[in-house]
């Protein structure tokens, strides 16, 4: 696994992913940009940084500490106070391959069982696998709209409901949805864009020195993966500690009214629809404050995260030349001056 700390540049992407790791309720991260910029490497690397999770002995690797949020099996065990066997597992990162069917994503009738034992059993899909981890979708802009819709629904509700082929199943599926793609090949519908928490634009580094550094590190990693990982172990541990500390601090971070008002002013100035933008901005700012060890969310946190939380929510004329990130930055500048 390529170490997270060894990723050159791409600070915005790393920030967005770290924030999602601190507060998964942020609602998914959209990473749009060129191919070969290490998008999927970053997601996998981040998951590898995180400590193993403790899981219950059930098909959905539920959290044994919170049976009320678990699957049916876990809840019934908790009710009848049957002790759970627990195991440790890596934070799952599930890839959703382009062309995956709805059956495979949501889960479907287990054909093998149906054929051999005549038993009607649910075969969990990719959503179940991603529970408590990350679901990564490359080229989300090429995915069919109804699948994106399904994914966003489940990501928002934390629960997957399957009603088909005589099955009626409901299971927890809380994951961080990470979608990536190249806008040159087609855009995501604005209705879907708005439902992602954060969005970042990644570009390949434009200067030669950085590009050389990226390629060199990749080469060194492939030559000796273990040795390379060992080199960055200390730096990776720092990232892990920062995220874990932020998770602990998160609940204690205060959001003063003045900050809330600023966030509202910013949203009004930009004319974003609905309250989702403000809410996400506030949550993300709180996670950032927790990450940087601040007890109170201030203007600096809002300003740093406004482009990530708002730029994809602007109602835009599709032919408007000015990039939305620029518009957000301009609004932030104006508000700071005011």
């Amino acid at each position, binding site marked *: 696994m390529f170490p997270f700390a060894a990723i050159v540049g791409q600070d915005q992407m790393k920030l967005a992913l770290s924030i999602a790791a601190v507060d998964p309720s942020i609602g998914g991260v959209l990473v749009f940009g*060129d*191919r*070969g*910029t*290490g998008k*999927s490497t970053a997601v996998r690397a981040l998951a590898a940084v995180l400590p193993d999770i403790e899981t219950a002995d059930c*098909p959905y690797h539920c959290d044994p500490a919170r049976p009320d949020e678990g699957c049916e099996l876990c809840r019934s065990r908790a009710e009848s106070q049957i002790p759970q066997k627990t195991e440790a597992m890596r934070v799952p990162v599930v*890839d959703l*391959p*382009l*062309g*995956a*069917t*709805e*059956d*495979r994503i949501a889960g479907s*009738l287990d*054909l*093998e069982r149906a*054929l*051999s034992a*005549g038993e009607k059993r649910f075969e969990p899909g990719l959503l179940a*696998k991603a529970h408590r981890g990350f679901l990564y979708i*490359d*080229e989300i802009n*090429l995915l*069919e709209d*109804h699948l994106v819709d399904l994914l966003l629904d489940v990501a928002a509700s934390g629960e997957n409901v399957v009603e088909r*082929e*005589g099955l009626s199943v409901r299971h927890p599926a809380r994951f961080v949805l990470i979608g990536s793609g190249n*806008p*040159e*090949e*087609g*855009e995501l*519908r604005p209705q879907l864009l708005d439902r992602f928490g954060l969005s970042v634009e990644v570009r*390949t580094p*434009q*200067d*030669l020195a950085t*590009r*050389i550094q*990226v*390629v*060199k590190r*990749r*080469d060194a990693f492939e*030559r000796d993966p273990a040795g390379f990982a060992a080199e960055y172990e200390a730096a990776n541990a720092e990232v892990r500690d920062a995220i874990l500390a932020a998770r602990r601090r998160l609940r204690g971070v205060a959001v003063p009214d003045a900050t809330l008002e600023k966030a509202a002013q910013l949203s009004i100035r930009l004319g974003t629809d609905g309250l989702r933008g403000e809410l996400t901005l506030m949550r993300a700012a709180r996670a950032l404050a927790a990450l940087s060890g601040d007890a109170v969310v201030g203007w600096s946190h809002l300003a740093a995260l406004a482009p990530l939380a708002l730029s994809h929510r602007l109602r835009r*004329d*599709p*032919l408007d030349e000015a990039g939305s990130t620029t518009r957000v930055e301009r609004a932030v500048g104006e508000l700071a001056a005011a």
Partner: protein
Amino acid sequence: MAPLRPAAANDSALSARSETATAGAALWREALSAIAVFAVDPRIGLRLAARAGPVRAAALQVLHALLSDDIPVRKMPAGISEAALLGGLDLAASLHTGQPVLENGLIADTDGGVLVAAMAERMTQEAAGLVSLALDRRHISIERDGVSREIPARIGLVALDEGMEPDEAPPENLCERLGLWISLEGADPRGAADGGLDAEAIASARNFLASVRPNDGTIETICQAAMAFGIVSLRAPHLAIRTACAAAALGGRLSPSSGDVETAIRMVLLPRAVTMPPMPEAQDDAHDEPDDDGDHDDEQPSSPDDPAPEPEAPRDDSEIQPSQDMTVETAAASLPADLLASLAAMMRPPLARAGAGRSGSFAKRARRGRVVGTRQGDPRRDRLDLLATLRTAAPWQAIRRAERAPGAPPRLLEMRMSDIRVRRHRGKAETATIFCVDASGSAALARLAEAKGAVERILAECYVRRDRVALVAFRGTRADVLLTETKSLTRAKRSLAALPAGGGTPLASGILAALDLARSSAKEGRTPLMALLTDGRANIGRDGAAGRPQAMANAKEAARAVRACGIAALVIDLSQRPSAEARQIAADMGATYLALPRADSRALSEAVAAAPRGGDAARTRRP
């Protein structure tokens, strides 16, 4: 004088023939060395553009010969299912035996070996995604009975690209991960030596590869070259470095020589070039006068190795696809001159850019939309129709029970694969609007801004409707496809902004170019609409020659061809006053006619939305 002539002609014909022979042999040698590099380090990946035939068969034979016997080589058909790739239930066998029968996945079976994808340009997105994942992660995850396992899948991929049309290419996410892009077109294996390599030499180069290290100079040069070619992805330089190392291992060198680096640039970076670096000489004077042919020849460095110098093609390419960002271009300008010179010597027309992937009949099989019936199929690909399946199986039960081997345990239901019914859906047909814009001097110059405005307006509407758009412009002596079908507004906007104007009106060429796009779009199952913006005053014929009568006759022929193909069309008259010519073209095309002076942009986009679409059976049959 007279008797000398034929002799001279003969001479040049002879030398031309021997030149093509040498060029064919050189291309073959190039292909051989690419195959050798791939055999040393299959992780680099190989995209082999060639039609099925003896030359490709010979190339694959060389590959087989270079790989030692313990390296598995497996073939991957274009329409392979996910179960066959990753492993899973063999449905037919399972139904027959009544026991779950598992089949091994092709990817896992090929671990440590080479997967040869046939007809890669028809590979489904699904398959391409799974293979890409295996290439990235070097293992695949398998779920079975709630247990996840990771199975090693260290494969090297050869994609056999048989794409013939410019828009036919293997899926882009796959091409991106394949380092060597080689075309066998024009390669001639006859009389060529085998390069003196055998499986043993490759095996020892493989062993040696671990001790080859790229020095800083190698990495820098390759990164510089990638930037100069406008290659955005950093995978390309990375794969180029692997290539340089493999080439060095073949030569027994501990670090890549400048020749190895050049090989890597030629095989990995050059075919992906988006822009050609500005040449040192070109900056002085030659650029302003593109018509001056004499200068062109002087510009090309005289290099004997240059396989096919085509100074026109690369420059046009950069015109059509304006460099993605200025920074890359300016960085290229600061490259060392000797590197630029050696890049110039390697120039040749780039291999077709990777495509979105074609999935043939599979893509046309909609997975959602209205249910319109059932058919026999695989329940893992389409939704199972349980009732229809049972209904099909029911009448056979008595016969099948009677057929069972005596003593076999009785089964409630005797099912066969052929009983299985899946639902058939009719998806919403996608539409594509193909703009064909007259950018000539005659009338368009004054009205081009308005025409652009109209196109932008329609584009915005298309964006809302999720239509695809394509853009053809004609001016001077020819028509250019500025934009192949895309859903990306960003790209459409950019190519529209870069649209230059002036020159003659080669209307026929414009219509024919747009017709080509419309037909390939219809072939993909979409319904195309051609929107022609012109004043109808053609004055350049199909052959590029000036002359109004001939040009008009050609244009009318082209218009009738559109009608014959059943492509729906819309003619938007750009002239100040409605022109008889444009009206005539519209009539020949069977198109709706609209005069721009009376049509505001809103009426225009409404017209596009409301225009009758081709592709419907009724229209296609129209004479």
